[in-house]
């Protein structure tokens, strides 16, 4: 278990790893949004909440939910790093004014449309079967309070979680029909995870491995903040079940009326 509890960064409350413990009440207490604003989904979503008339549709909708969140995170992250903006909850995101030539901004700019394309592809493929449960959902990442590194950390965690989420969902498919397509997206997330790890290593003089090493901790129970690429003894990527992933991301998902 990463020592989240001992972290002093203001960003620590929004770590993906801390998701399950982060209740809507906690978010309000942390002042992340006005009391009359909508609340984070609680209790956390589970795979049973994901709609789909058959197993394949259910997994694709699960993927769509994650891609929608990820694509929106990129939008908000680039607003925060750049010239600012306002998210769908009406929260003002002041820009940090980081130059677009800086490598974190440059790679987030490169990857943002890829995540949007994943979302749009899944939405289009699902057509009328696409998940609507999350349609009114908006995302609160608390990004307006994160510093430059906090933004990169959060996006990196999202990508690393995405890699493990796709792997963990494969056995939930009903057939093999969509497995290659899902895997083709998952490999892309793996590339993003490695590149953002390199970017973070360069900017902050860190030494996080860019891919699972031979001998990484097997079955790590939670996300390892220090190594988003934690693997297995055989140097393979780790797996997270849909319920593990949904518990992590639910605190970012806000339902209800506008602020």
């Amino acid at each position, binding site marked *: 278990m990463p020592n989240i509890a001992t972290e002093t960064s203001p960003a620590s409350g929004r770590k993906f790893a801390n998701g399950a413990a982060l209740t809507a009440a906690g978010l309000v207490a942390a002042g992340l949004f006005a009391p009359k604003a909508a609340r984070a989904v609680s209790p956390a979503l589970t795979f049973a909440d994901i709609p789909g008339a058959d197993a394949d549709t259910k997994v694709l909708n699960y993927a769509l939910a994650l891609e929608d969140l990820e694509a929106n995170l990129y939008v908000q992250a680039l607003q925060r790093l750049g010239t600012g903006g306002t998210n769908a909850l009406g929260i003002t995101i002041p820009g940090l004014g980081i130059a677009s030539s800086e490598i974190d901004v440059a790679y987030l700019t490169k990857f943002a449309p890829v995540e949007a*394309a994943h979302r749009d592809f899944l939405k289009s493929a699902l057509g009328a079967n696409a998940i609507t449960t999350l349609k009114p959902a908006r995302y609160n990442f608390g990004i307006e309070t994160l510093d430059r590194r906090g933004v990169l950390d959060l996006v990196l965690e999202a990508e690393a979680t995405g890699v493990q989420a796709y*792997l963990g969902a494969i056995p939930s498919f009903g057939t093999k029909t969509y497995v*290659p397509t899902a895997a083709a997206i998952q*490999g892309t997330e*793996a590339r993003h995870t490695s*590149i953002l790890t*390199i970017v973070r290593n360069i900017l902050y003089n*860190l030494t996080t491995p860019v891919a699972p090493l*031979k001998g*990484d901790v097997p079955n790590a129970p939670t996300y390892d903040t220090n190594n988003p690429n934690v693997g297995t003894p055989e140097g393979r990527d780790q797996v997270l079940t849909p319920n593990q992933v949904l518990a992590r991301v639910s605190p970012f998902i806000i339902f209800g009326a506008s602020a």
Partner: protein
Amino acid sequence: MMDIEQIARDEFSRRAFLTRMSAAGLGVAAAGLLAGCGGSGSNNKINNINSTRYQLPNRTFIPGSDINKVVLNFALTLEILEADLYRQALNAASGRALGTGLDANPAVYNQSPSVGNGNISSGFGAAGYLYLKQFAYVEAAHRDFLIAALGAEATKANPNGYKFATSDGTPGTDIATILGNILPLEETGVRAYLGAAGDLTDLTLIQTAATIYSTEARHSASIEYILGQDPGPRPSSQIPGVPTPDKEVTTAAVAPNVFEKYLDPNTVLAAATSAFFK
């Protein structure tokens, strides 16, 4: 810039701690890889199914008593190749004889003073050397994992060994060149796994194969970053040494960098054997 010494220390201390765990756990994990997918492990005589999708150019079939074992032997064929060429590349970058085996202790490897960085900066050269070392052990671990899973049915290495697709068959004499010669192996590996995954009959088995596949994608992207290239996924026509054209998982028009590409197994086998088999 990254502190190469610190990365190395972290890597080695962790590895020392985990080597025993790894040795103890590998057999169990690998046994689970094939659990529940039938098989005839206790039979002395193995009847290969001879899938025409998995055939070497000399018409030899990739062995396996069922399609899952054929696919895993296909993967093993590539992992043996990758592990051996990484071993040679690491030796070259470390100033050791190419034929030297992979040392059990990664600490013996250091970039040779006579091996320059090529057309990349010293910081990127140092990181590139580190990746070469880390990935060499990971590819060997993938190979050993598949061998353990396949047991008696595991395919054997090419008896004549492997060479790089260079004029003299050697990996190169500077870090950028060596990484550039490794890259087509990784990018072909990504495409090979994706092109074969659908032939596995069990979703859990596909999941396990995918945990290796995405590692190859990470390796590819990381090497491309070091070399100043687009970290992909991108068409094989942009990556010298990878068979062309590669295939898309969707017929929809897609923007660049959105989906991994794949290759059919026979395409991979033909290209790999002609380029890398001695």
